[in-house]
């Protein structure tokens, strides 16, 4: 009788040990069953009840986007300086780099040639509109703080940008390279003031030969992070 019980208990133990190595039990804790106690009472196989909490990355509000508008002056080469306004959208990829897109428009003035010759204007009103877009990257070269008096400190960054895009001017879309430098001052963690200087480099063929023109722009903008 005792022999039979031992065989029964041993086979139970072997079965339990075998089951604990089954592939579908990989996730469970690997616990050896206790040896059958002497004397023959039924062994207690303890199933560990470890609750593993599933932890997923928390849905923290990310504020990597920045959007806003700007206003300033644009000097269209040979066509006077005029008011420019536009919109800007940026995505901050890391603390050092961001991708940005800008879209702006201005109305160019009269060229000296048109003014002095007194002849027919070179461009129609719609051709005189200077509308551009530029897509590119920026580098926060000098992050830091600016101090206003003794009580106020604002986070700031001086950045450099490089972009490519197109400008519609004088009846054609023209490939444009944009170089820029700017300063961003954060009034609040979510609100920033920008001072930007940009150079739009494009070929223009209005005054005879096709020539590379530099069109400088200085703007003041307001953006929000979201």
């Amino acid at each position, binding site marked *: 009788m005792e022999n039979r019980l031992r065989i029964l208990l041993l086979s139970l133990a072997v079965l339990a040990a075998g089951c604990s190595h089954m592939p579908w039990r990989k996730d469970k804790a690997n616990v050896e069953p206790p040896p059958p106690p002497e004397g023959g009472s039924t062994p207690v196989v303890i199933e560990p009840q470890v609750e593993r909490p599933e932890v997923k990355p928390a849905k923290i509000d990310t504020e990597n986007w920045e959007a806003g508008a700007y206003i300033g002056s644009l000097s269209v080469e040979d066509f006077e300086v005029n008011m420019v*306004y536009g*919109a800007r959208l940026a995505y901050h*990829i890391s603390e050092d780099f961001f991708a940005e897109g800008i879209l702006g428009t201005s109305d160019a003035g009269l060229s000296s040639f048109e003014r002095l010759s007194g002849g027919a204007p070179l461009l129609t009103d719609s051709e005189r509109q200077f509308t551009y877009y530029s*897509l590119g990257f920026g580098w926060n070269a000098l992050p830091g*703080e600016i101090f206003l008096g003794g009580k106020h400190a604002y986070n700031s960054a001086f950045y450099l940008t490089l972009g*490519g895009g*197109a400008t519609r001017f004088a009846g054609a879309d*023209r490939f444009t390279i944009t170089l820029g430098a700017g300063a961003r001052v954060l009034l609040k963690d979510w609100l920033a003031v920008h001072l930007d200087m940009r150079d739009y480099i494009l*070929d223009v063929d209005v005054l005879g030969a096709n020539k590379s023109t530099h069109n400088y722009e200085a703007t003041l903008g307001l953006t929000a992070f979201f």
Partner: protein
Amino acid sequence: MARLAACGLLIFLASITMAQAESLTVTVADPYIEMRTGPGRGFPVFDVVERGASVEVESRRTDWFKVKDGRGREGWVYKDQMKETLVPAGVKMPIDDPGREDFGAHRREVGLLLGDYGGASVVTVYGAWAFNEHLAAEVAASHILGDFSDGQYLTIGLTHVPVPEWRIQPFLSIGTGVIRIQPDGTLVGTPERTDQVAYAGVGVRAYLARRFIVRGEYKEYVVFTDRDENEEDIEWKIGFAFFF
């Protein structure tokens, strides 16, 4: 243009009001974590939170987390320190932080390419969505800027990466789309035309750092014109992309 800007502003205002912070409280497990005045290494440390204290995570900007400590002070903590904090479940805070090992296994990619299409300058923005490590669908919008004509084309295609484990990954691409060519106003008698295109190409994308990719590609296009002969164009482009 003004209408476009107004629309943009409206969308932007709506998204601000919709962005509601979901807060999470974590416990500091390192000897201390440093709170900075801004989200960047250039900003000074103004406070530390000791081991055992709790902070509330309010938002994240790039690799920096805005937290509020028990005394109500707000500051920015770097991701490497946040990774060592414990969430209420008692385990380290899981943080979404892509690196080299994610390049190749990533799902989404967005980039900007500049180059030359049949002798004209071209600007392309593309987005890709990967079905698996080898195969991705791509949508690209391009603007062609030539001396005598301008144009746009929109394509959809497939790219295949044979070896997604490499740091520099060659790929093959095929696709189709539509192209619109507008001759410059000064050229008389050449009408604007819209045609279907198909392309095949090869390219290389390489991991730079963090989420960045540099990418170059060469493509051959066939424009299915309604003239006697189809037009063939060669395009090369280079640019940057990032994955997420």
